[in-house]
């Protein structure tokens, strides 16, 4: 089976100095929930931004569903950035309509359903929302799409534990054998039961790509405990 995401010899340097991503080869299949795990500054977000066409690689090639990164892949990749972009006094519902116009695969019904289960009013204005609620709305905008690839950059960092559970449940409920979810986080304990596979990133390089259950089986410890061992300071 051909892979969904393919990185070949991908590097990224900022200002010709630091190599934030250093010659990464990685191929991710469809139908998996994959954790992109690494300490702060290891290059996770840079990798994610390149997959989403926000940054261009300095070297190497990225393909998603066989296509080079561009409008064709952006239509099929749903991306949750690690920062908030919801500002101004539009209502949540207006933003939903905006997404509905913009993305063919956005489902208004699904998004409104998620909004309701998180008790957020569609008429609420963005500038009246708390930071955590904005994060929830952003996640709904992403999960509301019927995408091939979902890329979630730190989706649980800013929300309360109950919302965290809801987000993880939403990821499970949304599971589709044709789609893959790539989640970057350093809060591994909360998320590891949901992951099929994990990628460990250190200083811009992939140091491990394995199934989460294999790690537990072979190391006799949780992914979180193994992560702490590998990345011990």
């Amino acid at each position, binding site marked *: 089976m051909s892979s969904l995401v393919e990185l070949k010899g991908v590097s990224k340097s900022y200002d010709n100095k630091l190599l934030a991503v250093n010659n990464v080869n990685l191929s991710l299949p469809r*139908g*998996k*929930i994959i954790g992109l795990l690494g300490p702060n500054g290891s290059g996770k977000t840079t990798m994610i931004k390149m997959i989403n066409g926000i940054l261009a690689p300095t070297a190497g090639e990225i393909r998603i569903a066989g296509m080079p990164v561009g409008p064709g892949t952006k239509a099929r990749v749903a991306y949750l950035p690690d920062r908030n972009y919801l500002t101004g006094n539009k209502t949540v519902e207006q933003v939903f309509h905006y997404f509905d116009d913009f993305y063919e695969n956005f489902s208004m019904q699904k998004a409104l359903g998620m909004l309701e289960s998180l008790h957020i009013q569609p008429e609420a204005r963005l500038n009246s929302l708390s930071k955590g609620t904005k994060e929830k709305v952003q996640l709904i905008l992403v999960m509301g799409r019927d995408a091939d690839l979902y890329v979630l950059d730190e989706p649980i960092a800013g929300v309360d534990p109950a919302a965290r*559970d809801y987000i*993880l*449940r939403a990821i*499970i*409920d949304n*599971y589709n054998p044709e789609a893959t979810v790539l989640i970057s986080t350093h809060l591994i*304990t909360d998320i*590891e*039961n*949901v*992951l*099929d596979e994990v990628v460990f990133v250190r200083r811009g390089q992939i140091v491990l790509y394995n199934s*989460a*259950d*294999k790690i*537990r*089986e072979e190391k*006799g*410890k*949780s992914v*979180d*405990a193994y992560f702490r061992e590998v990345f011990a300071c």
Partner: protein
Amino acid sequence: MEPDRPIYAQLIEKIQTRIVSGYYGCGERLPSVRELAADAAVNPNTMQKAFAELERSGLIVTQRTNGRIVTEDKELIDSVRCRLAQNHIDAFGRKMKELGFTKEQIFDLMDRRI
């Protein structure tokens, strides 16, 4: 879930327990992989792997028309039940020996507790 053991292995034990205890009766249709995965808050692929293993062991049978059902082989269910019980007894026995109890003392204590 215990964090340091493979999740699929723990799911197998959970489903086995539900079958031998009769929570899922002999020949009864099982919920879908997706429902069970959502219930346990685990990845559907992991639940699928547990199901595949239970099918290999014969405890679960896939029927073309009826989905997955619990086997109607009562002997098989009984043997799994005994094996699960033995595992618990072995683990318990090890712990009690660590605490320095003899077999007779263990029986005596058991008699008073249960």
